[in-house]
């Protein structure tokens, strides 16, 4: 059964006070309960169902500037005492690190919690099956959809308490409903797969089964019988689901951790122009019901809204306590990463964007992790569709796209079609001068 605040708080308090008794000078503890139920179907028939219940604790103890952590799923007082002891013994033999500390108390979150991140709705297994079965039925109504890779629906509910020895103790419930449908299309010896999914904090915000099934089918069919094209330097239009990855790479290159170590191509770029004038990047923590919204980060620090890039100029970093100290900056609540990160809309419509050159390549999928944030080099496998004179003409696959973010960022042009589908979101994006590796 879902554990309530009082239960989690009791364990957190026990860990904090036990650590103090055993000799820690400060401590931090996370107690988290997650219950998740999934159903998977295949070819419109039940394939499997899974229920998982996780309850765990992670404790970090400090002895002055020495630190160590433990985590466990056994929450008996005997076990917790033993682990706290082990944690403190480990801290004792760990060398001092001047930057180790809990966050400043004045940065602790103490505001209202009104973002509606929890939806109490519970769907029975049959309701979940029916939802996703309908999506597959819609997909299968297309002749060229011959198989599924499996489709599923999951409902996850979490509750947690984060506490530290400076008096912070808070937590909240979240929910996540996810439906996905992955189908296989076949025609003339060519077989392709693609998917659509929807993942929201509130059940009512999900795409409908029909929208999910229809989109998955169309995407899979549009990839059939692809051609390989000649190697060339050209303009690439990134579909929104890929464009967001470039934004995530940007985020990892401006975290205080990479900045402080110098292991990023964006070191020493603060207040410098890294994009063109039209580009603005925001990380907004307090959008109601949004996937990336949170009240505080994994250290209990409140999350402010950040304008990371203004008119193409890098204005801020993503900062947590430890590495923030190395660069003399206070945490802005990003120890858990970004919240709702997005490019603001550009001023071109999607149609204007795809008509901006005679020949463009529209990329719908990339494969491989080809972003090197130290050098800024980018090289991934890709597939997509050719755009000629503003018309989508034929699918393309087994190609690579490569460039360097320093140049690519300056060449980004954005459409005006931003939507908040993921926690990181971008409008459709055009980047000129990317190398396509093909025949």
């Amino acid at each position, binding site marked *: 059964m879902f554990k309530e605040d009082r239960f989690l708080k009791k364990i957190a308090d026990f860990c904090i006070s036990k650590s103090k008794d055993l000799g820690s000078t400060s401590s931090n503890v996370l107690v988290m309960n997650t219950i998740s139920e999934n159903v998977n179907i295949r070819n419109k028939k039940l*394939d*499997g*169902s*899974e*229920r*998982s*219940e*996780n309850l765990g604790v992670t404790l970090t103890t400090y002895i002055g500037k020495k*630190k*160590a*952590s*433990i*985590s*466990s*799923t*056994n929450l*008996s007082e005997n*076990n917790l005492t033993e*682990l706290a002891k082990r944690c403190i013994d*480990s801290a004792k*033999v*760990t*060398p001092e*690190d001047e930057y180790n500390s809990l966050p400043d108390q004045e940065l602790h979150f103490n505001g209202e919690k009104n973002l509606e991140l929890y939806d109490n709705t519970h769907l029975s*297994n049959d309701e979940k099956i029916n939802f996703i079965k309908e999506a597959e039925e819609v997909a299968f109504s297309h002749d060229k959809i011959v*198989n599924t*890779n*499996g489709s599923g629906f999951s409902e996850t509910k979490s509750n947690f308490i984060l506490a530290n020895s400076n008096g912070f103790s808070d937590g909240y419930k979240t929910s996540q409903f996810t439906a996905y449908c992955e189908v*296989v299309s076949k025609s003339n010896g060519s*077989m*392709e*797969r693609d998917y659509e999914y929807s993942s929201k904090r509130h059940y009512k915000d999900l795409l409908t089964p029909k929208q999910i099934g229809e989109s998955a089918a169309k995407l899979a069919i549009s*990839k059939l019988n692809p051609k*390989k094209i000649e*190697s*060339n330097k050209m303009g690439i239009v990134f579909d929104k689901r890929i464009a967001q990855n470039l934004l995530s790479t940007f985020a990892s290159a401006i975290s205080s951790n990479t900045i402080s*170590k*110098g*292991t990023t191509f964006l070191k020493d770029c603060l207040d410098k122009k890294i994009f063109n004038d039209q580009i603005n990047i925001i990380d907004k923590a307090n959008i109601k019901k949004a996937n990336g919204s949170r009240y505080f980060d994994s250290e209990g620090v409140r999350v402010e809204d950040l304008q990371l890039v203004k008119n193409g100029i890098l204005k801020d970093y993503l900062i947590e306590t430890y590495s923030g100290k190395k660069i003399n900056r206070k945490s802005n609540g990003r120890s858990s990463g970004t919240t709702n990160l997005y490019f603001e809309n550009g001023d071109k419509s999607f149609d204007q964007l795809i008509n901006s050159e005679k020949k463009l390549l529209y990329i719908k999928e990339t*494969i*491989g*992790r080809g972003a090197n944030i*130290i*050098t800024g*080099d980018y*090289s*991934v*496998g890709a*597939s997509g569709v050719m755009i000629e004179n503003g018309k989508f003409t034929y699918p393309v*696959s*087994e*190609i*690579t796209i*490569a*460039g360097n973010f320093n140049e690519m960022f300056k060449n980004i042009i954005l459409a005006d079609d931003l939507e908040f589908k993921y926690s990181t979101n971008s409008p459709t994006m055009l980047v000129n001068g990317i*190398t*396509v*590796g*093909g*025949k």
Partner: protein
Amino acid sequence: MSSFFKNTDLNLSKAEKIVSETLNKCDDGELYLEDTKSESIVLDDNKIKSSNYTKDSGYGFRAINGDVVAYSHSNDISEKSLKNSSKNLKSTLKNSEGIYNSEIKKTNQKFYNDLDPVDEKNLSDKIKILNEINEYSRSINRSVKQVTANFLGERKNIEILRCGGELLKDSRPLVRINVSVMVEKNGRKETGVYGVGGRQSYDEFLKNDDWKKICDEAYRIATTNLESKASPAGEMKVVLGPGWPAILIHEAVGHGLEGDFNRKKTSVFHDLVGKKVASNGVTIIDDGTIDKRRGSLNIDDEGTPTEKTVLIENGILKNFMQDRLNARLMNTKSTGNGRRESYKHIVMPRMRNTIMLNGNNTQDEMIKSVDKGIFAVSFGGGQVDITSGKFVFSCTEAYEIINGKIGSPIKGATLIGDGPSSLKEVLMVGNDMMLDPGIGTCGKAGQGVPVGVGQPSLLIDKMTVGGTQI
């Protein structure tokens, strides 16, 4: 005797009763119990950045009827929790009328010792070595600006309780040591990463100052990359070095030969058994029985003894890798490839150590035969689309080949190929088979499991190289 019911309200016979009563009308299933302790100690930016210790135990209760799998897991090993799971399983598999398949092979095989890497060496000794690694790496050359090093250690005890009371056990050690070095020269930065690991004690890798070789190798790769020029783009001949580049095999054919994708007919290989899928001379096996290797297992996570499974023999597709579920539905036997990341995860057919066996050519012959191409020595990760067969892997150390000679190092690039056709493009198979250094983790459907790869040098007629130079 089971060690899992100490300090709980369960004992073996109570648990067995719940298991048998739940599964007796199912086709298959088991109660999987797991107790894992693990540690991660990270040195970064001249400091011990983190020292984490994790103790996790729990169970996964699985019931299978036909092709439907019901799974329930919890970290609360108690009678109430187990009965609750049993109820969940039964409600999914309404009116199950299966006949339990109680057949499972027995084994005494042992490919690694029952040892505990986490506790057999104390934390201060590990921290001391990490600090030595940091100092040594920084002393190699003044261009070294950053060093990250970590120790990852784990001991996982598992027990599998089947309907009828059969109990199968394994105890698995696993360690990994990684070093990453960033060098900077004339404003240019590059990294080199190297690591070692396997199912043994840390000391096996640390004795005789062997850890210095890890640092030296990371530094060598980083320095090589400092001199690298833009990589070419387009189709060309590729020579792969021995060992870790076998990621190619893992991605190009390995995943596509896992039983689940073939039963579901979503793999490009599903109708190719007995057919030619690779050049003559190409033989690929998946071997869970190599001593102390990262991908080896005494029994898999369903209790089946592992084996040496021939996947492709002299170019002909012979077998898929199977767990019990997919084997039963395809009228064959499990090959001992049923694996799961932990008790929180369902079983799937997964690779162990996937290896291409030796041929007759030398690496020299391969390089000499290439007019224009690349020589790829070290790789980061890879990925594959099972359905279209397209796969990628990214080089972290590569050189151009011009007129039969190795030229300048080139920047890391992604290579893309087509699984079913790329192994037919193999022109030469080397005689220098090597296993990887023991650092691979394979991801599938959100689950990571330790794996190994191995291959001799290979010459591939054409692959598309994802550089920036046309």
